């Protein structure tokens, strides 16, 4: 296929996948004022053309199934196909979301089991599965914090604290919930600066959003002290569970003192990322926030399961989606949890941590600079290319692009923002030592290249379907849809 040839370029008028056409119906009873005058400009291709085009397009992606993909904070691990199979069972995939509960007991039982498992894994009192990704889970969580303060008549608390290392969704969420964001510094050792945090606490504090292990790749050691301080100031603690993979089955956020959290099931619990989604971000809460949970969720009454929603939950923050969230992802998560069991969950965290510390040790030995050399890696860690950038003029971005040529997806770059020229590297528990070693070899070769022939690195990638793309042009001369040449 010619690069850039879109499905529109290969179509031709009248061509079609006719086996997909049902008999036409008569719409003459609809007023013409309701009807479209021009058919929409969709592609006109045969089934073979569609299949071939999208099969070939797919080959232009890196993916877990084809490459090592050590994106920090994203947990690009192997997600068992069995979980996908389970969610695709006809009884699940053909179920209408509004089918009567009497005809949905199998599905409801699954959701109930998952709610219980997630409670046990996090140490929280109750769980609602409805948020459709991490960010929506954060929204639900912070909205519950607000509902709690509001219900107590404590409406003056207008601030949410967020460490500078936090993921962008944290401050964005706080703002969507009508809060102001107050940033808290991170100390030299990667932990939150507790003194600065205490300084920031006060009557305006509604709560704090923390990730632990944090996006610096380290475990927040003084977490219980922080929790006490925030609680004493009248605030609540929100746990961003994006990094739960690091402690799964070993440590519970509930025990650290968190009041509310979300989990990224698509990171920790077996959903491949699908080139952007879908995800699922269930929320868990401590007892006092239960009345505010988003609806619907499932309870068991005797032998039967049923939904809780509407008037039964007057304190709820409400509904977050048209139906009940990303059901299919929840089924995958349950299937995965069932296969792992208690021991398997513990091993997830152990091997994720082992792989990260091994890779960190090897890269350090090879001369790469660690952001937090005194610390254990959690399931991920940070290296910085600030020296390479200064002395060789080769940036983290250049290293990232050149890695692609070696058949490795690049780690997360330039995040967290507080570490200059950084890679956040998360190998995950499903990769082998051989893969990690090969990655180190590639890194070493690229650095040698950066010394001998920096231009080669700066102009990478060289072996992919396209070379480095012009982002500036993309933003300046917006071209967001294919415009057909007139026929």
């Amino acid at each position, binding site marked *: 296929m010619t690069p850039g040839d879109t499905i529109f370029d290969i179509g031709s008028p009248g061509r079609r996948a006719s086996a997909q056409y049902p008999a036409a119906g008569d719409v003459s009873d609809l007023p013409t004022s309701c009807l479209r005058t021009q058919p929409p400009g*969709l592609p006109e291709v045969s089934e073979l053309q569609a299949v071939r085009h999208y099969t070939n397009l797919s080959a232009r992606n890196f993916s877990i199934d084809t490459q090592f993909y050590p994106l920090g904070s994203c947990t690009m691990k192997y997600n068992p196909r069995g979980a996908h199979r389970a969610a695709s069972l006809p009884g699940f995939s053909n179920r209408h979301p509004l089918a009567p509960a009497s005809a949905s007991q199998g599905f409801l039982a699954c959701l109930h089991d998952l709610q219980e*498992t997630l409670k046990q894994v996090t140490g929280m009192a109750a769980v609602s599965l409805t948020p459709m990704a991490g960010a929506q889970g954060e929204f639900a969580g912070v909205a519950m914090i607000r509902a709690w303060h509001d219900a107590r008549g404590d409406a003056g608390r207008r601030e949410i604290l967020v460490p500078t290392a936090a993921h962008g969704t944290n401050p964005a969420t706080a703002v969507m919930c009508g809060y102001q964001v107050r940033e808290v510094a991170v100390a030299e050792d990667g932990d939150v600066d507790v003194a600065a945090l205490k300084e920031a606490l006060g009557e305006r504090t509604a709560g704090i959003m923390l990730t632990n292990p944090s996006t610096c790749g380290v475990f927040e050691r003084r977490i219980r002290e922080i929790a006490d301080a925030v609680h004493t100031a009248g605030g609540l603690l929100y746990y961003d569970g994006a990094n739960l993979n690091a402690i799964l089955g070993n440590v519970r956020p509930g025990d650290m003192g968190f009041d509310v959290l979300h989990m990224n099931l698509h990171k920790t619990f077996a959903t491949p990322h699908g080139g952007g989604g879908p995800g699922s971000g269930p929320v868990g809460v401590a007892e006092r926030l239960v009345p505010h949970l988003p609806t619907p969720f499932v309870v068991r009454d005797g032998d039967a399961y049923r939904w809780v929603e509407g008037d039964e939950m007057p304190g709820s923050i409400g509904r977050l989606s*048209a139906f009940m969230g990303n059901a299919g992802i929840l089924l995958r998560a349950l299937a995965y949890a069932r296969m792992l069991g208690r021991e398997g969950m513990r091993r997830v965290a152990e091997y994720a941590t082992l792989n990260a510390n091994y890779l960190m040790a090897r890269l350090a030995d090879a001369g790469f600079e660690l952001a937090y050399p005194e610390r254990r890696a959690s399931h991920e860690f940070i290296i910085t290319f600030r020296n390479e950038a200064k002395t060789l003029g080769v940036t983290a971005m250049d290293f990232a692009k050149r890695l692609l040529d070696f058949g490795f997806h690049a780690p997360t770059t330039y995040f967290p923002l507080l570490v200059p020229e950084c890679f956040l590297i998360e190998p995950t528990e499903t990769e082998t030592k051989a893969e990690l070693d090969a990655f180190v070899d590639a890194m070493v070769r690229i650095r040698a290249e950066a010394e001998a022939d920096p231009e080669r690195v700066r102009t990478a990638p060289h072996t992919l379907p396209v070379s480095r*793309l012009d982002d500036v042009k993309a933003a300046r001369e917006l071209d967001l849809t294919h415009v057909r040449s007139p026929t």
Partner: protein
Amino acid sequence: MLARIGVTSIDALFDEIEPALKTADFSEIDDGVDEMTMLAEMASRARRDETGPCFTGAGCYDHHIPAAVWDIAARGEFMTAYTPYQAEASQGTLQLIYEYQTMITALTALTVSNASVYDGGSALGEAVLMAVRANRRHPSMKTDGPRRVAVAGACHPHYVDAAATITRNQGIELVSTGTSGGRASLDALADMTGERAPVAVVVQQPNFFGLMEPVDEIADWASANGALVIAVVNPTSLAILRPPGEWGANGADIACGDGQPLGIPMASGGPSFGFMCTRESHVRQLPGRLVGRTVDRDNRPGFTLTLQAREQHIRRGKARSNICTNQGLLVTAATIYLAMMGPTGLARIATRCHERTRELLRTLVGIEGVATRFGGPFFHEQVIDVGQDADRVAGDLAARGIVGGLPLGRYFPELRDCLLVCATEKRTDDDIARFGDALEQVLHG
């Protein structure tokens, strides 16, 4: 590996975590099982929920999905890739999204589209927030009071609820015009002026009851009164219905809805995806990801995420939305679906759904005591009155293997005896006859 790290056990790697935090024993979690056992357990639950033909729509529709759609969408290269941040290693996903943006704007007759939000309900929430951002000069923006957004006519109550949850904390209030005869009351809308003037007007077409709203009048009223128009639409219907971009004299400003009808299984309502389109002039207010075409160093065409400064990972607290993970895989499926359908195939689906629904209604109203509740043109859903508590009727139908429509009493007490029913192109004469027989039995024993 441990030696290389310089420790003697994996436990040592957790030594920065204070022991008091490591006391949970997780004993309530069962032992793991193998894939075979897990699948057998899940299959026995899934089998419990298998039913006969489905006649419920209400935002989620039982369309045929060509076998090729998921055979291709589920390829590992699409399914196990991340968000295409490294553009050069993600041209597959990026080009596909660009094609998707083109297709969905072709359907809505607007000029720009994002790469998806979560679903139709949350899309409406984002659309409302976006309209408020975009209509900065609206008089209510200068006051301290709430910003009102009018909901004209019968909009899906779950969509309105979700949008209210999402927008409430930003001082936005959704106000319904109410309906008359199942459609927007234009008089009620006309009253919304002065202090009560809305920043935006939401209208769903076809509406929650399956009926045609007077979208031209509503859109024209809105532009005359300084409000933006938010269209909530069903993408299948757009193959034959006038698209939002052509409503009234100026067209709608934002179109949103749920992509489920485009090749996504019902699957209890998710994952599916929300789509959002708007005019080019509003592009910077659009939340979510956007893909643009550009060139590489060798001037070859290529695709990349663009205008990322609208997003949380760059703009953090000042972002247009907190959305990060979206519904990419479902967009992949929908894009393949639309490519296979083309304009004519999608129109076939739409007209066939309409015809099947007429056939369904013919059968149902032939049953004593059953009547359609509202007159006038409809697309592929309608409200029928069964003369008895519809909640119970739906349960009894389910016991006979028929998913027989949504009881409306929980949303509209006056429609306690009503079911919202739907027939897609999949419903055969035989399915319809089964529904008719089951309903006859349920009502008249």
